[in-house]
């Protein structure tokens, strides 16, 4: 039996974050379906918001799991989340409009079995292991689906595997220039995996504060969304991509500013040093 190294004091309870996370992620993912209903790609940015919501939940799950010194480093938790999530997510895209829900359920099954394997076969014996790995797989799958929706405007298997190239005024169907065929999924994978593990890795310790860590998560999420929005120029119309990009920039600037305020609030003391000091008399 391992001893809990850190305690959660104050802040929002984990279950509340979990429920809010899964509901807002699924709602945002389904809002991208407005693209199909209105025959535009303008609502793709909801995919990016789903990514941020899922990451907020996931980073708090990592906090819950890694509070029990698991001895493997925090990044490994992000890696297993996305390693199991990507598999569930790609199969789920075959189910059309049900894809987000199927992804969540399938990832939960995979995560539950992996949790059982780690806790019992590998004898980890960490009380929250099964629940945390289940949540983490769901977060990984939904985050990747959010990236897919942000970059392609949809989350169906056909949408992820086909793209269009304009050549000599003709629009040609291609599989090379798509989310899966162009392997943009690999970039999405690592953008998410880094964004999910970094906040707790950066904020852990005796001075850990929930609001500061979650603000950093939102900042990492919007930063990932920014990169993904730039990549979406290749797959969706320019206007829609600009909407995503502007939202990502605004979100990132706001969360970055807030995070700096919170860091200064929690710091014992800080000095606003200039990068290059002005040297006088030379």
């Amino acid at each position, binding site marked *: *039996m*391992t*001893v*809990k*190294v*850190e305690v959660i004091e104050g802040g929002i309870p984990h279950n509340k974050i979990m429920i809010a996370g899964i509901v807002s992620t699924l709602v945002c993912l389904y809002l991208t379906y407005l693209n199909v209903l209105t025959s535009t790609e303008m609502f793709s940015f909801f995919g990016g918001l789903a990514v941020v919501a899922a990451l907020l939940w996931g980073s708090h799950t990592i906090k819950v799991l890694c509070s029990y*010194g*698991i*001895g*493997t*480093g925090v*990044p*490994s*938790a992000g*890696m*297993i989340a*996305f*390693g*199991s*999530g*990507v*598999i*569930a997510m*790609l*199969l789920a895209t*075959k189910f059309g409009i049900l894809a987000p829900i199927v992804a969540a359920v*399938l990832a939960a099954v*995979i995560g539950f*079995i*992996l949790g*059982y*394997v*780690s806790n*019992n*076969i*590998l*004898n*980890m*014996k960490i009380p929250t292991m099964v629940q945390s790995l289940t949540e983490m797989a769901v977060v990984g799958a939904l985050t990747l689906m959010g990236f897919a929706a942000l970059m392609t405007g949809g989350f169906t298997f056909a949408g992820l*595997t086909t793209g269009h190239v304009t050549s000599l005024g003709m629009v040609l169907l291609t*599989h*090379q220039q*798509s989310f*899966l*065929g*162009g*392997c943009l*999924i*690999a970039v999405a*994978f690592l953008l998410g995996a880094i964004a999910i593990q970094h906040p707790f890795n950066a904020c852990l310790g005796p001075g850990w504060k929930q609001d500061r860590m979650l603000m950093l998560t939102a900042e990492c999420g919007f930063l990932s969304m920014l990169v993904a929005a730039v990549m979406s120029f290749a797959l969706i119309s320019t206007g829609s991509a600009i909407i995503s990009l502007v939202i990502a920039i605004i979100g990132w600037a706001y969360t970055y500013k807030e995070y700096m305020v919170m860091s200064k609030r929690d710091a014992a003391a800080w000095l606003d040093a200039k990068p290059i000091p002005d040297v006088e008399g030379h």
Partner: protein
Amino acid sequence: MSAVAAKPTAGSAMNPTAMAVGVVLLLILLGIAYYVYPAGLIPLLLIIVGGVLIGFGVHFVPVGGAPAAMGQAPGIATGVAMLAAGGGLAGLFGGAWAAAAGQDALVVVITGGIGGGLMMAITCMMVNFVYVFGMGIPAASGKVAKDPITGDTQAEYKSQGTEGHGLPFISFVGGVIGGLFAGAGGTLIYLELLNVYQAALPAVMGITAAQVMPIAVSAAGMFAVGLFLVNAVLTAYNITGTIEGPHDPKFKRWPRSVVASAVASALCGLVAILIVAM
């Protein structure tokens, strides 16, 4: 108990009931594969072999973690998951290159193994360069009195208060063997998934074999990376922290990891194969 003393205590004890449940789970997953998509059974078995190779191979890799970065424990100064990913993905790239050149399966898997082993050999050598010439510490193991291969005594070189430091010869050899296993395992997974997708995706999507290539390669590569990371992290959970190499007492925990990797690979491999069956 203070935070410092609260080290992971997942000992080397085996849990026979859980192992039995694991084996039953493995058989159930194979049964589902046979029932839903019979052509996927042999690839799934080979995916499981690949996953087990990864899980077993990672135990050889000398993982030092943060103590190694401070010169207080032997091994490479990073976590298990990162090292396994580095060595294994390098192998995967090597194997994928051989597969693209149209080589047969054995050559592809061996190329993948050599890629992983080469990556680990370079990593181990550069790590020792940094330790010896950068940090000024000799290589000494804290777990054995004599190096099992060269027979060099270790105690004279070990600083007091440390568990050894640097990268002794046995750890170097262990790293290369681990890279070989992990690279070969990752490549085997990629190759099997690629074959399944190349054979079945054109009919599923209603396009030609040439058009399906980018999707098959990308999906197989992505699944191989996902399976690789799952197996590497599960092995990291088995090792819990640092390991010096094949001579470390923690190495004896490998049977647990083999069962765990087999179950995890069967599960993830089944889901990956179901894409063409649904």
